C-alpha cells in the first residue's frame, strides 16, 4: 500500500504517492533532469542528491530551466 502526500510544485498543489524521491518525481513528470534545477523549501537540491532526497508532505518545490532572456 502506498500513502499519498501533497506537494506544491511551481505554485500548484498536487497529490503524489509516497515515498517519492526528487529523482522519482522528475521521472513521473517526464522531465529531463539534465536540463532542470530543483529547489525544495527554498534550498537547492544538488543533482547528485536527487536519488536520495525523499520528499515530505507539504514540501514546496520549484523546478526551473533556462529560457530566452536579455
Amino acid at each position, binding site marked *: 500500500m502506498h500513502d499519498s502526500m501533497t506537494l506544491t510544485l511551481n505554485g500548484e498543489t498536487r497529490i503524489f504517492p509516497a515515498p517519492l524521491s526528487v529523482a522519482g518525481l522528475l521521472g513521473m513528470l517526464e522531465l529531463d533532469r539534465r536540463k532542470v*534545477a530543483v529547489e525544495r523549501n527554498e534550498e537547492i537540491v544538488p543533482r547528485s542528491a536527487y536519488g536520495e532526497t525523499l520528499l515530505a508532505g507539504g514540501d514546496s518545490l520549484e523546478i526551473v530551466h533556462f529560457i530566452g*532572456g536579455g
Partner: protein
Amino acid sequence: MDGIAQAEDTWTVAGRQFRSRLIVGTGKYKDLEETAAAIEASGAEIVTVAVRRVNLSDPKAPMLQDHVDPKKYTYLPNTAGCFTANEAVRTLRLAREAGGWNLVKLEVLGPPPTLYPDMQGTLGAAEVLIKDGFEVMVYCADDPIAAKRLEDMGCVAIMPLGAPIGSGLGIQNPAMIWMMRQQTKLPFLVDAGVGTASDAAVALELGCDAVLMNSAIAHAQNPVLMAKAMKAAVEAGRLSFLAGRMPRKMGADPSSPLTGLIR
C-alpha cells in the same frame, strides 16, 4: 591594424577570455530557430539566459539548450524579473545548479515604466552573491558612485545602461559612460539601450570592452541581418577606439592643400 593583431584583440572577464565583444540576449525572438540563427550571425560567444519555472503541463516542449548549445556558448544567467536581493540569489543558485555556472548577470530593477536599475537592491544582492562564490557581472545605473561601490565589493564587470531597457534609444549619456569607463579597471560594458548598429559602435568607441543587447536584434525587421550588422558595428567601433579618433575642431580644415592652385 593587421590581421594578426586583430586576432589577438581579446577581452577577459573573471579569467575567461573572449574574442567577440558582443553579448546577446536570447529573449523576444519569434521562435527558438530564429533565436539560434540570430545568435550564430552575431558571432557572440556569451549569451544571456533567464531562469523560469518549467511548464509542467508540457514537459516535452523544446528547450533553449536544444537550440543554443551551452557547450558552444557561455550561458550568462540573469536575474531579470527579480525585484529583491533574495529572489535574485535564489534564482542564480538554481541557475548554478542547472548549468554549473558561477558567472552571472545581476540585475535588480525598479517598476515599469522605467525599469531603472534599483541600486540599493543591486548592492544588497551583489554582496550576498559574492559571498556565495558567484562572479557577478552587474547591470547598473550610469552612477559612478554606485559603480565604484560595486567594484570595491568584488563584482567582475560593470554594465551601465545607455538608455532604458528595450527602448532602443541609443546611448543617451556618452559623457558619463566615458567617465565611468575611465574610473574602472574592470571589464566595462553598455548593457541596455542600443537600438541600431551605430549605437553599438559608439559604445565601443567610448572604450567599452563589449556591449550587451537583446531587443535591438530580436525586434529588428530582420533579426538575423541585424545580428550581422551588430557584429560589424562592434568590430568597427573597437577598431575606431584603438585607432584613436581625430581631434574635434571648431572650424574647417581643408583636406586638399591650399597652395599650388591655378590662377
